[in-house]
């Protein structure tokens, strides 16, 4: 972000500018300290894990333990399996949402058809509905039809999270796309389908990437669905990490911290890579930047 142009009479270096910088620093100390502290804790050995000092001899052992069978033996949490399940669930959910959501977003962005407002409103209502409202009946239904604790069942229920994001974000991108481009393609003898695939779709690629990554992040961070609708086979890292805390007897704070860092890393990396599109995505296209 380049420096903002100053208003007439405004000066760059003043007492109030200094105060503003101080206030910003205070916020970021509060905001970043817990993450930094977890990082430090995850590098501490078992002997040092209960000390609250910043000086210690760092080790990567905790990460190795958490991701290996040793961690499972110590804490009875198979974190590596949960990590793999999380990846499968989230990628599956996002792919399904893209395949089904892109055509719907295109239809709603290009045409006003009977029920298009209803479709969009319904999608939005899923974003704001209390999850348990849907999950409690699903808990019963899944147990009856054998979808409980399966990845297919998780991918299906995650649509509640990923589908509204994909449809709302991409509709706003399709709406911003000048219709003339597709018209020109049609003039050149393209069919509607080819005009969509060859002209419209490539032009909203940044939107698709942003929607897909954001949907992945939210699916990854979801807790309620795997908590209720899975046991072991489809259980994800968000559920697995809470089990580190619940272990009776011996506590493994350093392992918990390592697990937290591992679980937080994928969303952080993805979010930083789509930062430009984040505002628009998080506000469902309501705020464009």
């Amino acid at each position, binding site marked *: 972000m380049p*420096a903002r142009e100053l208003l007439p009479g405004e000066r760059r270096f003043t007492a109030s500018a200094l105060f503003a910088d101080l206030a910003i620093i205070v916020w970021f100390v509060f905001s970043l300290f817990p993450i930094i502290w977890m990082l430090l804790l995850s590098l501490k050995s078992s002997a040092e894990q209960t000390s609250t000092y910043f000086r210690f001899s760092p080790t990567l052992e905790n990460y190795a333990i958490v991701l290996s069978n040793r961690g499972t033996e110590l804490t009875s949490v198979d974190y590596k399996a949960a990590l793999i399940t999380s990846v499968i669930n989230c990628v599956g959910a996002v792919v399904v949402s893209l395949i089904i959501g892109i055509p719907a977003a295109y239809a709603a962005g290009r*045409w006003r058809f009977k029920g298009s407002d209803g479709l969009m409103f319904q999608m939005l209502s899923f974003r704001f*509905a*209390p999850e348990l409202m849907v999950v409690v*009946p699903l808990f019963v239904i899944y147990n009856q039809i054998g979808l409980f604790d399966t990845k297919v069942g998780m991918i299906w229920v995650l649509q509640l999270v990923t589908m509204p994001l994909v449809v709302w974000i991409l509709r706003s991108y399709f709406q911003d796309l000048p219709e003339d481009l597709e018209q020109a393609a049609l003039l050149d003898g393209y*069919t509607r389908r080819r005009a969509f695939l060859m002209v419209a779709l490539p032009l909203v690629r940044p939107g698709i990437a942003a929607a897909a990554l954001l949907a992945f992040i939210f699916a990854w961070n979801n807790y309620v669905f795997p908590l209720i609708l899975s046991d072991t086979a489809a259980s994800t890292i968000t559920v697995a990490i809470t089990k580190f805390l619940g272990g009776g007897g011996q506590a493994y704070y350093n392992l918990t911290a390592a697990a937290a860092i591992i679980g937080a890393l994928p969303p952080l990396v993805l979010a930083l890579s789509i930062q430009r599109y984040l505002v628009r995505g998080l506000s469902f296209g309501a705020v464009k*930047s």
Partner: protein
Amino acid sequence: MTTSKTTPTSQGEVDSAAAGGSSAAASKRPAPKQVPGWRRAMRPYLLAVPAVVIIIGILYPFAIGAIYSFLNYGAVNPNPRFVGLRNYASILSDSTFWQSVGTTLAYALVATAVETVLGVAIALLLNRSSLIGRTLERLLILPLMIAPVIAGVIWKLMFNPQWGVLNHIFGLGSTFDWLSKENAFFSIVLVDVWIFTPFVAILVLAGVRSLPREPFEASAVDGAGWFYTFRRLTLPMMWPYILVAVIFRLMDNLKIFDAIYVLTAGGPGIATQTLQINAFQDSIIRLDYSRGSTYMFLLWIIVFVIARYLVKLLGRAQARAAGSEV
């Protein structure tokens, strides 16, 4: 919804291909296949069908849940019977429910208010765009992207009275309990503020940056003070952005679950029991599906009423910011 039949925002492609001076050039290329009118009219529907299937698939359990709330269904009672409004009567006359409503509303209001004030402040500070601000701005979203559950775990480790880092830093000794009956509410609000203030901040910051420059130049030339400019210019123009952020935050805070469940699971006692926590305990721990569903239906009504009101407010604010209404 407003039109009786599909109205493509463009002309039909068949007409436009033959129109204008490009017809000579177009005739050399393969002519576009005639697509029957009814198929063109069906196009948006066909594209939307898979999404509609998904919507139905999600609305189905939703409807089932609504039906549960009129039954006496639970794991101990697999052959449910219609009991009318008895679940509602029993819950509405239960003091625990009203306590949960109070906790939920208090939590949603306090957390949303703090996040909004802090978020707007941070956005305005970052908009001053000093070197420090521009450097740190990239890191603003980090807490927001961490799963709320993991954030809960992180803070739970820091809250620990014996060896948690917070008591050490603030010199509170090993007896101060962040998650005690008196403190737990404020501690979970603190965690929520930590996670979600950046959400408000980045939305409002995007809004502030998109504001036109001229009114601010004029106000600076006229010698208006900082506070006067903020109250009369910045705030009204930013209002739609702030409202969008408030809507998202309030709705999410009303159905807060993840962080509370990890930090306190609603306790100690029922000190931090919100409606979703309550519904979880009823339907998943005690396996009383009907009671849990009734809880959720009541929460849904609360969310729905508030959402309708706020969306109406947003529409009015956007109209005013666009200048069509004063």
